[in-house]
Structures are given as structure tokens and as C-alpha cells.
């Protein structure tokens, strides 16, 4: 893969998350019934950062969880090697809660579809809102995000790659291009 364009550096990422946080604050009043769920893998860290910002501003302690959608994917029959099932942990009762689902990239919408199915198996939340750092278009399902960090148009041979300090020792968001044979 080769790098095409730096979409966000650390500062850009901070600004985007802060903006999303404030939009969430504007749209929601009651944070006693509010929970944030990050999607594996990088969405988890974004969710933690948004949770921290809301906690600081609202002086509260939000419920938070981690969701892995592997078992709910619709391409299971196509994959020869099974993707690794990662940790799911929703340590609170989601019934009647307003849930903010956080992922890094919105692309086909299939992961979000899987996440919605997975969340419903844990209970019946009052609402689910979706926050993504980047919406790269090419949706294959009628799914859109409520909060978007940045919206771009991409080609199918391109990849959006997020790095976060918690896992990759740097904060950056790159648009990459697959090279032949990759």
C-alpha cells in the first residue's frame, strides 16, 4: 500500500472528535441514560476519547462498551480463513438507553448493519446514534452516520487507515492506495 494523502494529523483528529462530542452534547440532554459503544478495533479508542470529553464537560461517568461484529458479518461464507473473533463487552443493561455507536470508517455500511444486529441481541435500546471519523462514500446499504468527522469520496482500490496512539504510537488518518497484487 502506498500513501496518497494525509486526511488528518493529531491536531485534526482532536478537532474532529471535539466537534463530534459537542454535536452529541447538543442533540442529547439526559446523559444518565446514555452509553457509548466502540466498535473493534480502532472505534474502541475513538469511543474512549469521546466518552472522556463528554464526562469532563458534563461531569458524569458514562457507561461504555466494546463491540465486535465478526459473528454477525454477512460475508462469512465467502471468507476462506475466518476472521479473528475479538472481545465484545457490554457491561451495562442497554434496554431503554440512548446508545452512541462509534466506528472509524463508514464505507459499505455492512459493518454497521452487523453492529446494529449485535446490539439488538443485548436488548432494546431507546435510540442508537452513529458517529464515524470518516465517511468515505460508496454505501451499499441505506445507512448514514449522525456525526461525521470528515466526508470524502474514494475509489474501491483505496483504503482509509487510522492510527491511534493507544495502539499504533501515533495519531493519523491516511488515504492509501492498494498496489497491484495486494
Amino acid at each position, binding site marked *: 500500500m502506498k500513501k496518497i494523502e494525509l486526511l488528518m494529523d493529531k491536531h485534526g483528529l482532536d478537532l474532529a472528535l471535539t466537534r463530534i462530542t459537542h454535536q452529541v452534547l447538543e442533540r442529547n440532554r439526559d446523559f444518565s441514560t446514555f452509553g457509548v459503544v466502540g466498535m473493534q478495533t480502532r472505534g474502541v479508542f475513538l469511543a474512549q476519547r469521546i466518552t472522556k470529553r463528554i464526562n469532563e464537560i458534563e461531569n458524569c461517568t458514562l457507561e461504555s462498551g466494546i463491540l465486535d461484529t465478526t459473528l454477525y458479518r454477512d460475508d*462469512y*461464507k465467502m471468507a476462506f480463513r*475466518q476472521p479473528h473473533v475479538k*472481545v*465484545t463487552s457490554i457491561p451495562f443493561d442497554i434496554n431503554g438507553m440512548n446508545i452512541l455507536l462509534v466506528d472509524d470508517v463508514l464505507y459499505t455500511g455492512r459493518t454497521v448493519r452487523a453492529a446494529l444486529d449485535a446490539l439488538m*441481541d*443485548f436488548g432494546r435500546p431507546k435510540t442508537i446514534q452513529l458517529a464515524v471519523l470518516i465517511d468515505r462514500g460508496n454505501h451499499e446499504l441505506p445507512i448514514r452516520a449522525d456525526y461525521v468527522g470528515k466526508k470524502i469520496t474514494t475509489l474501491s482500490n483505496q483504503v482509509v487507515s487510522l492510527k491511534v496512539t493507544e495502539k499504533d504510537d501515533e495519531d493519523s488518518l491516511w488515504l492509501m492506495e492498494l498496489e497491484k497484487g495486494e
Partner: protein
Amino acid sequence: MGISIQHLLGLDGISREDITLMLDTADSFYEVLQREIKVVPTLRGKTVVNLFYEDSTRTRISFELAEKRLSASPLNFSVSNSSVNKGETLRDTIKNIEAMKIDMVVVRHSCAGVPYFLTQCTDAVIVNAGDGLHEHPTQALLDMMTIRQKLGRLEGLKVAIIGDIFHSRVARSNAWGMSTMGMKVVLCGPPTLLPQHYESLGVPMTDDLNEAIDGADVVMMLRLQRERQASGAFPTIREYRNRYCFDLEKLFSLPENVLVMHPGPINRGIELASDVADGNNSVILQQVTNGVAVRMAVLYLLGGGENG
């Protein structure tokens, strides 16, 4: 990433990476089993045949639950009410079942090598649920999962496996798998039931129970298979119990956090005293719970792909 095997016939020759992947995946499925809704849609549309030529309660129910909780369609086949009694061969039986479009076969048979034989006559994925005196890989996986869950690691731990080693496919799978994972396995039982070939695998053996459990982190008692003792490997059940029953006195000679395991069904008072089986060190029922998670993991990892 991804598992490198197509079928699970045994743990002999399975890499450390594959075993670790199966155990990690089982941990994820364990979380699914703690939910209110314990079903995920992953294997929707897959048909799994449970081909049981031998009696089983735990393993069979465990596989069936695992299949249902992955949304696969289980089909149960037992010999007692099938055409096997009319003389149909194993090969014909599997060919006929395969003709009805199935994806996976979970097989238990009294002959060693039957799972391998089935891979030669069908395209379905084969999972060994116990074949003769050979292997019982999912049992060994759930044993390792339980140890890792309770003690946090496998590497370097000492496991004493005690009982009728000769007739035990559980001991065989565990000896392979645990050695691969860097554990120290000691086998113990009456000398007549300790097959010498284990020595060539570098697995130490002893007929002295106290020597076997000395310094052990895990004590695994095996069921005395009374139906297989016609050869007179030891004089009487009473003598066996006197020498090899794991009771409170032996338990108290070990560190406080030692795990006591048993693959079930237990002969209470023969190989394992009731107060130990039901005591705080016993993880026997946890093994049963983990069995479902391990089998979900195996079915998940092997069940993908266009060709079943």
C-alpha cells in the same frame, strides 16, 4: 491469521498457533454464552450432522448446543435407530448423508481413524468427537481453556493425568496438545494401563500417584472405564481405588489453588472422592460450560468458505 487446518481429527501435529487461535476464539464465544440471548447468526444455513456411533451425553449435547447457538442446523444421527443395524457400511452411510447436502460432520466412533477415513470419502468438514482409543481433541481443548481461564497461562504448568491411560483418548489428546503448549504432562496409572509408547513422546509416566501429583498445578482424573476392563489389568476395583483414588487427604497435600479436573462421567468414590469432586478446587462443571464455547470456536473456525 486464520486456522491452517481443514478438519479437526486430533491434536497430534496441530501447531501452537492453531491451538492458541482455537482457545482465544473459545474465550470470545464464552462471552456470548454469558449473554441473555446466547445465539449468534454466524453459521446460518450450514447443516452439521452429529454422527454418533458410540454413547455420549456431554459431548453430544455440547456439540448440538454449540451448533444451535451458532444458528447452524444440527442433524442428529444415532446408530440405534438407523440403517447401520441393517448392515449399511460407514462409507455408504456418509455418502448418503452427504447427498442430502450437508456441510460438516461431527463424528464419534469406537474405531480409531474413522474421522480420517471420512475425510477420504466426503467433502464435508470433519470434526472428531472421539474415535476409539485415539483422540478426543475438543475435550483436550476445553481442558486447556479451563486451565488458562483459571490459572492465566499454560506454559510451564505441570499436569498430572491419572487413571486408565491405555483406554483414554482424552489423555492422548491432552498429552499432544499440552506438550505443544509447553506444559509438563505426567501420566499415572496401574503399570498394566500405561502404554510404553508415551515414553518415546517424552511424556514421563509413573504408577505412583503421590509422585505424579507432587508439584502439580492441575490434577486430571480419568474415568475408570469399567466396560473396558475385561482383560484384568488390575485385580479388583477396590485395589484400584486404594491406590489411585484422589481424595481429600491427597488434595490437602497440594497447594491451595490446585485445579481438579475430570472429563466425566465420574465414578464417584472410585477414581475421585465425592467431597473433592464437589469441592472448591474442582472445575469439573466449568469444563462442561467451556466445552460449548470450545466447540462453537472449532465449528466457527472450520465452518467458513465456499466449499464447506
